């Protein structure tokens, strides 16, 4: 922004190198990562490991089974993470874990691992808001200074902007998250959950070309998605629908799964870009950062890029290593607050399913 006075960051340069272990497991991904903040102010990702709980096509992940998966894989994932980083747990400065938001049972199993490690190695704990983790990692990787953030994942859909030590929510979904909408539709048309339902929808959509009318529900800076899911599902009962993709003759009046994926993406992403543009116009920002699992969708990145270019702005996005839930982002956000003197006492190291992005005091930014 022109004319903005140079502000000094409240975060002091580190007096020595700091290492943090981050543990994430708020949904079906179990992640561990080690980040290093060096004396010269640089940040290095030493390792970033992940294991995803993949369910058969047509099924979602249940909290109980997901928690079981995390418990089974926790030691292996953390072990790999330490090995790749050539770091011992004795060298770590703090152990960061996801406090929320997310699914209760998976969150609890990961928090339990974090607490155990904390007691075994006598390391302080840092509870981290999952959304803030995404934002901080996105800023670190892309170098975006003060962007409007579109956070789109399986559980969250928010347009966020920073103001006075708080990530304020400008717009959000009024019902289900966009990733949830895509995942559930992938189940309806029996797409594989490997590597992720969203990725398979994206590939399928590339083959579609027919835009079917479905609702377009932006409400100011908020959006509504549940009705869209119902209406796109209804097309699978249409007599023109061909689950096998039909013939290759483009003259035929048929609807294929590819057409439905195409229509769903085009409509839903247009809504997301529209509310992001509103927020950018409202606060006068020219940078936009996309984070969260749906953020790796290249069509969404492309549409957002066109919008940003029209506003003479810039788009920042990351690839699947940092977009999809991971441990390293928890380590990054946790270490930032740890360096500001924050840590979570053992008795307070609980987790919560409801934890809004704007409830976090962002002490490390001016």
């Amino acid at each position: 922004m022109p004319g903005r006075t140079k502000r000094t960051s409240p975060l002091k340069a580190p007096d020595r190198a700091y290492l943090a272990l981050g543990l994430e497991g708020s949904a079906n991904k179990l992640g561990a990562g080690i980040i290093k903040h060096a004396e010269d102010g640089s940040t290095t990702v030493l390792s970033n490991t992940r294991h995803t709980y993949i369910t058969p096509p047509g099924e979602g992940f249940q909290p109980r089974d997901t928690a079981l998966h995390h418990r089974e894989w926790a030691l292996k994932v953390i072990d790999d993470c330490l090995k790749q980083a050539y770091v011992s747990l004795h060298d770590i400065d703090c152990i960061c874990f996801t406090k929320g938001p997310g699914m209760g049972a998976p969150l609890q199993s990961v928090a339990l691992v974090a607490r155990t490690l904390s007691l075994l190695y006598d390391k302080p704990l840092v509870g981290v808001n999952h959304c803030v983790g995404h934002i901080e990692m996105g800023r670190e990787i892309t170098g975006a200074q003060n962007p409007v953030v579109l956070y789109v994942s399986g559980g969250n859909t928010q347009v966020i902007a920073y103001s006075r030590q708080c990530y304020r929510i400008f717009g959000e979904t009024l019902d289900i998250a966009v990733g949830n909408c895509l995942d559930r539709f992938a189940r309806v048309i029996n797409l594989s959950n490997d590597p992720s339902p969203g990725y398979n929808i994206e590939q399928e959509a590339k083959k579609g070309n027919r835009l079917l009318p479905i609702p377009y529900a932006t409400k100011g800076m908020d959006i509504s998605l549940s009705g869209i899911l119902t209406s796109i599902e209804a097309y699978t009962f249409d007599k023109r629908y061909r689950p096998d993709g039909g013939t290759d003759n483009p003259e035929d009046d048929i609807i294929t799964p590819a057409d439905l994926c195409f229509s769903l993406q085009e409509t839903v992403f247009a809504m997301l870009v529209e509310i992001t543009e509103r927020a950018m116009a409202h606060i006068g920002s020219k940078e936009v950062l996309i984070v969260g699992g749906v953020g790796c969708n290249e069509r969404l990145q492309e549409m957002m890029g066109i919008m940003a270019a029209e506003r003479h702005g810039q788009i920042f996005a990351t690839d699947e290593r940092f977009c999809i839930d991971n441990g390293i982002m928890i380590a990054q956000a946790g270490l930032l607050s740890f360096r500001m003197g924050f840590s979570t006492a053992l008795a307070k190291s609980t987790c919560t399913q409801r934890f809004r992005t704007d409830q976090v005091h962002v002490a490390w930014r001016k």
Partner: protein
Amino acid sequence: MSLSASQSLISKAAPISQGAEAAIYKVALSSDATPMLLKYRFKKQYRHPSLDANLTRSRVAGEARTMLKCLRSGVSVPGIRMVDATEGVLGIEWIDGQSVRKLLPGGAEDDDEDEDDRLANSDTPEEYGVSADAIMQFIGTEIAKMHLADIIHGDLTTSNMMLRHPRRTGLPVQMFLVDFGLAYHSSLTEDKAVDLYVLERAFSSTHPESEPLFASVLQAYEVGMGKEWSAIKRRLDDVRLRGRKRSMVG
């Protein structure tokens, strides 16, 4: 390719500002004609062309329809001068005056305006021959008339209210509600209460000192709404308690 009538009108119009959804222009059909304001919803390249065309058409038509309904119900809104839904152009009456936001203390402090703008905008309510309290009365009365017609504005802020200058125009001072881009039709108490709550929040964020003035807005609104007021008041108290945002799940 020759330009359509709307396109050629825009090409000779003077740009005023650009928001997220539309660009605003000022244009006169001939040199001695009264000017009008053009709200041009330009093509969004990121959107699928047929989706974009559909949205633009329905939004322009919807906004024009809502404004006409307001006019018929006696709500003070600018008159409609032209509608070209296919091209995304809406022409409305030009109001010579100032937005209420700039007239109230605190509202002119906008980061993205330079010094010249601020000098040009140094209007005060006194220059319009009305007190700040009288402006609040205008606001409350107009919103009440609009809600009685079951129209919800959807984006009530002091930026979306214009006061016409009495001396410059030779017409009596009058307040206009503008920008019906997010307006919709509803008779629900909930929607009306949320509409008021949005305005209340806009008041406290842009005009921290004039917050007590919002009480006069509600007073005039109460008079305008008559017996509907008590239900809306109860709902407004509820809305205040819960805020607009829900607690996040998952």
